[in-house]
């Protein structure tokens, strides 16, 4: 184990005060000051050997979240597609652009919109910084979803990594919450109406309590809405709350969760990799149950088994330079793309919020448009019940699918690829079929104008899809005798439904939420 390095004493410190040459020493110190400063900051000199570089990783506060050596497989593109690191870079970029925006932004109903205009048209580089902040936010939502899909399809949620998947889901929710709270801040029409709709969705449990006749004493929906808005309408109270969440509460919570996320990656034995990569040494490390008992912890004798950190040194390479270069390359790539977007494309800013005239169509940000399509049939099912079931379902995945095989193997191998492809085709047909059907025939109320509201509330095209997906997943589990393939089936269904619904609501929904082939066909007003 590396021992603590002592700071190498600088030359001048060692010179004995012989005679009266103190002035000479003084001037030499001036000349030497920059180098001495450097040495005092970074204790070891330039690390020239693998061992010294490992030590540098180990002793540096920021680098030591990484192991000194890393498994070769973890650096392959196919292991991670770099998505976690890209998401992290985007998070840092959002922090770096968000703080300068706070210098001019004023979170008040009277001034917010004007301060956005000021940032856009007056503040030097303001437009660029705002653009980058906006595009990086969209990119982060997209990348966090892709990262999640990567972790899912490589079965990175099994065994010791179960809990990190749950932390990941919390990060996913944080990312969406950050985007959504940021959406209100410009106080333009887009912002106002998207958040009005969002807060009404929070209130939609009233559909159920109304039907049961218990709203007067158990108004969950109203409580949620008032807690979010601090009022009955989107106004100053809501802006204050969203601002506080956006610039402080959510970023801090995200940083805390990220710390746990990264710490767990190491404690769980590094990134997922196929067993075959470790075959030579697998028996040497053993499973958590057969690993050697701990002897000493930091200061005391600790019961329990050792964690699987760096026990397996074969097939590993030094983190410096290998992983550091990979991370640097991903950082440069992410920055290049985002900054270029920020330079060439302006973030939208519509007219100032006007509570008496809704946008038509009033569309939520793209990642919520799939839900908005479902909400347009009934608010509670589409906006509360289905998203809750999906998020809780995803969180439970590691606890329902525990087969240990195929960890680290994309799509669980050949059979899994077939299941994924077949599921993707079936889900595409089902979702498109459902949309074509509802666009042509309408939904319940168009056929039976007198159906009770409770039926409308729960029987949403989304509910139908959910049931079909769940049944399909159970069938796959039964046919293939594998919970992993069942999980793949249901995840693929969700993914396909998300993509198609998002596309559909983005492109084919126009004024009055009517169907249009393209925006060119929208009526002019």
């Amino acid at each position, binding site marked *: 184990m590396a021992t603590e390095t002592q700071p190498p004493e600088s030359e001048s410190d060692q010179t004995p005060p012989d005679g009266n040459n103190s002035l000479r020493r003084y001037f030499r110190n001036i000349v030497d000051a920059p180098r001495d400063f450097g040495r005092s900051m970074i204790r070891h000199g330039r690390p020239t050997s693998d061992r010294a570089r490992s030590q540098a990783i180990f002793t540096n506060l920021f680098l030591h979240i990484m192991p000194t050596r890393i498994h070769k497989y973890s650096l392959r593109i196919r292991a991670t597609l770099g998505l976690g690191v890209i998401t992290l870079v985007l998070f840092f970029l959002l922090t770096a652009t968000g703080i300068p925006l706070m210098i001019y932004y004023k979170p008040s109903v009277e001034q917010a919109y004007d301060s956005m205009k000021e940032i856009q048209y007056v503040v030097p580089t303001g437009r660029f910084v705002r653009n980058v902040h906006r595009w990086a936010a969209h990119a982060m939502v997209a990348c966090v979803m892709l990262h999640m899909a990567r972790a899912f399809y490589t079965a990175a949620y099994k065994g010791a990594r179960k809990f990190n998947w749950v932390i990941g889901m919390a990060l996913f929710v944080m990312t969406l919450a950050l985007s959504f709270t940021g959406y209100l801040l410009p106080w333009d029409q887009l912002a106002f109406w998207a958040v009005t*709709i969002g807060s009404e969705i929070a209130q939609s449990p009233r559909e159920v309590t109304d039907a049961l006749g218990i709203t007067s004493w158990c108004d969950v929906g109203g409580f949620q809405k008032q807690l979010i808005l601090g009022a009955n309408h989107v106004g100053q109270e809501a802006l204050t709350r969203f601002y506080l969440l956006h610039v402080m509460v959510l970023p801090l919570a995200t940083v805390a969760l990220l710390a746990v996320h990264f710490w767990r990656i190491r404690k769980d034995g590094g990134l997922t990799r196929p067993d075959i990569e470790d075959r030579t040494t697998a028996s040497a490390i053993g499973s958590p149950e057969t690993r050697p008992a701990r002897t000493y912890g930091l200061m005391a*004798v600790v019961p329990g088994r050792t964690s699987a950190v760096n026990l397996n040194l074969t097939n590993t390479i030094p983190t410096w330079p290998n992983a550091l270069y990979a991370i640097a390359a991903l950082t440069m790539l992410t920055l290049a793309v985002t900054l270029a977007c920020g330079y060439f494309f302006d973030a939208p800013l519509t007219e100032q919020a006007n509570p008496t005239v809704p946008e038509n169509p*009033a569309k939520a940000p793209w990642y919520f448009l799939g839900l908005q399509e479902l909400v*347009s049939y009934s608010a509670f099912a589409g906006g509360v019940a289905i998203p809750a079931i999906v998020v809780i379902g995803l969180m439970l995945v590691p606890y329902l699918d525990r087969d240990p095989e195929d960890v680290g193997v994309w799509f669980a191998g050949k059979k899994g690829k077939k299941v994924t492809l077949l599921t993707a085709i079936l889900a595409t047909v089902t979702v498109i079929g459902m949309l074509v059907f509802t666009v042509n025939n309408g939904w319940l109320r168009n056929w039976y104008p007198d159906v009770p509201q409770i039926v409308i*509330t729960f029987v949403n095209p989304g509910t139908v899809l959910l049931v079909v997906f769940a049944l399909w997943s159970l069938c796959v589990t039964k046919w293939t005798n594998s919970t992993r393939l069942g999980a793949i089936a249901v995840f693929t269904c969700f993914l396909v439904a998300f993509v198609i619904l998002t596309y559909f609501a983005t492109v084919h929904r126009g004024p009055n939420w009517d169907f249009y082939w393209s925006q060119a066909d929208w009526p002019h007003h």
Partner: protein
Amino acid sequence: MSNDLHSSPRFQPPPERRDFLGLAAIWSAVVGLGVAALGAVRLPMPSVFPESNSRVKLGPVSRFKEVETTPVPEHRLWVYASDEGLYAISAVCTHLGCIVSKEEGKGFFCPCHGSRFDIDGKVVAGPAPKPLLHLLLSVSPDGQLVVDKQKEVGGDVRLQV
């Protein structure tokens, strides 16, 4: 191996009284923090809402009696005059809060997700879960029409004036 460690003299089970005191300390800390957390969560729930005075004067009653419908966009409602009296219908869609527009002779229509309502505000199509709200009307001492934007009344209530 770990059994060896546990059976060494340093690992004797602690006395039970200490167990009790330790547990008592931990649980009182948990209860204390829990109560504090509940208190902290109570704070963001306002007890008085900014728009708590939801009654607004709309203008002299006589003005509303003369015309069949008077739109009041700044308060998001319409005032209707019928033979039985005055009534007000809110323009806030009961689905997700967009503002409905009037289609002459047919009722109301919401641009956000296409809910339709008849002239009385009853849902005829779309996702809206309940009729447009009828709001409580009254007359102030100085002869002005007053609407309470948060008081819902039955669809057949009319203000006789």
